[in-house]
């Protein structure tokens, strides 16, 4: 179906309002019955265009004082595990955009004022040395174009009440992204078995999740190659300097006010994030 521009804008506005006030909304599939994955990506793009064009003082996502509108710093791949694909009834990953306003610097707590029902997951982040081919990109191309990898924590959240999602709802909602933070010791991808590396995530001192690199589509670089091909088909390039969050390496866990979470990827180091105690 061809959704009218005003319908797409209306959903994007509803999701943006939900985030601004930390008040969830009904699923986009109910706002626009018959919503296709393609149209959901149009909603995502409309939402990103709003945020990028937004004046800083209007952007409630910005954690600190800012003197510029948010800029694109990379991309995320989602729905990379079999468990999540089964949950959403969708046999492919999805993707979203990463803005600099979503990145939490090392040692800074994650703000809670815009979070609704946040969860957190461990991932491997790729930082690109060179642009990725838009056509036929392979995992080998990804490894070759990667400057370094870092352990990452991604805070995901849904602006849709009770995580009542199908694939189109999360796609419209920028793949349920919220914040991310990166480790600070760059790892040469040539020295890391990113398929077999273990993942251990502790929450408030207890191991809350564990997994391995292969949990992400069999190999994290496969997820990045998929993204380069998929974005490439839409005329978008993963550029030099871009960050790519490649997908969860194990189960996702709740991220509540005051939580302290650390993820260790065997051979790639540790990354930690604390959530502010208040809202």
């Amino acid at each position, binding site marked *: 179906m061809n959704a009218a521009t005003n319908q797409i804008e209306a959903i994007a506005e509803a999701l943006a309002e939900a985030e601004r006030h930390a008040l969830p909304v009904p699923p986009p599939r109910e706002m626009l019955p018959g919503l296709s994955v393609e149209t959901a990506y149009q909603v995502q793009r409309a939402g990103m265009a709003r945020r990028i064009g937004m004046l800083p003082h209007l952007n409630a996502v910005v954690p600190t004082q800012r003197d510029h509108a948010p800029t694109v710093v990379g991309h995320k791949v989602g729905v990379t595990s079999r468990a999540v694909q089964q949950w959403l009834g969708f046999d492919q990953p999805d993707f979203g955009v990463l803005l600099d306003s979503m990145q939490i610097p090392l040692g800074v707590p994650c703000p809670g004022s815009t979070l609704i029902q946040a969860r957190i997951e461990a991932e491997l982040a790729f930082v690109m040395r060179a642009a990725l081919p838009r056509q036929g990109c392979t995992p080998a191309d990804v490894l070759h174009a990667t400057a370094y990898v870092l352990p990452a924590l991604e805070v995901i959240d849904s602006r849709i009440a009770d995580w009542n999602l199908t694939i189109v709802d999360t796609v419209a909602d920028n793949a349920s992204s919220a914040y991310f933070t990166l480790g600070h010791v760059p790892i040469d991808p040539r020295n890391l078995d990113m398929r077999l590396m*273990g993942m251990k995530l502790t929450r408030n001192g207890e*191991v809350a999740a564990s997994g391995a690199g292969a949990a992400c589509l069999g190999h994290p670089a496969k997820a990045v190659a998929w993204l380069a091909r998929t974005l490439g088909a839409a005329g978008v390039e993963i550029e030099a300097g871009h960050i790519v969050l490649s997908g969860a390496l194990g189960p996702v866990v709740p991220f509540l006010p005051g939580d302290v979470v650390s993820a260790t990827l*065997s051979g790639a180091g540790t990354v930690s994030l604390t959530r502010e105690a208040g809202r």
Partner: protein
Amino acid sequence: MTTEHEGWARHLEAARRSGTLLGADDRPWTSLSVGDGYAVQSCGLAHRLAEGERLAGWKMGFTSLAKMRQMNLDAPIAGYLLASMDVPEGELDVTAYQHPKAEPEIVLRLKHDPGPTPDFLEASRAIESVCLGIEILDSRFAGYQFSLGEVLADDTSAAGYVLGSRWRAPDALDLGNLGILMSVDGVLVEAASSAAIMDHPVRALMALARLLDARGDQLAAGQLVLTGGITAAHPLPPGRHVVVEAQDLGSIMLSTRTGA
């Protein structure tokens, strides 16, 4: 141990020898406590050692916190391993089993007894080397339907173990966070970390030493310790190709068949 425990151990041994699965009506006991379960297990071990079998080591069960909570336990459970349960890598004739399942394991070989209540450092120092393993489970109870006391009496479903060929010193490994993968017929079915074993496999060894002390046994140099399941156990009907891999510990392949 009582004559009742002796009799119940004989009942389970007869079931094992004849390849009979025990249903709900085939239990000579009305209920089995955890204490009863361990007592029956100890009788069974004594019988098999008297028959000339050799004790190879021990195995841990319910070592994940989630599993312990699910079973309402505050500690994992333990069983024994016999040298005759050692299965070589490669082809596996599954006619010897009733309803076998496989799961990856981190296996420790002990340099010495860490003592009855070792701390983390004492337990770590007792480990000579580490390898990847596959545990073969085969309950004597139909449909794996058992109470906690019953699974303990049945030696925690122990039936076999396959050892990888790559033994490493523990300090050469990130033992508490080794990635572990399992594929069945070429499809990745599990991607896990050794962190799922009580946060660290050494903690399973610490718990084992305490459990054995409580029942009057102890660990010894050269013994193997299977530190507990990391993933779900997957069925092993004939014609399955199972590959298990672990970070820095290589891989093990198992292909199931029937007959010679």
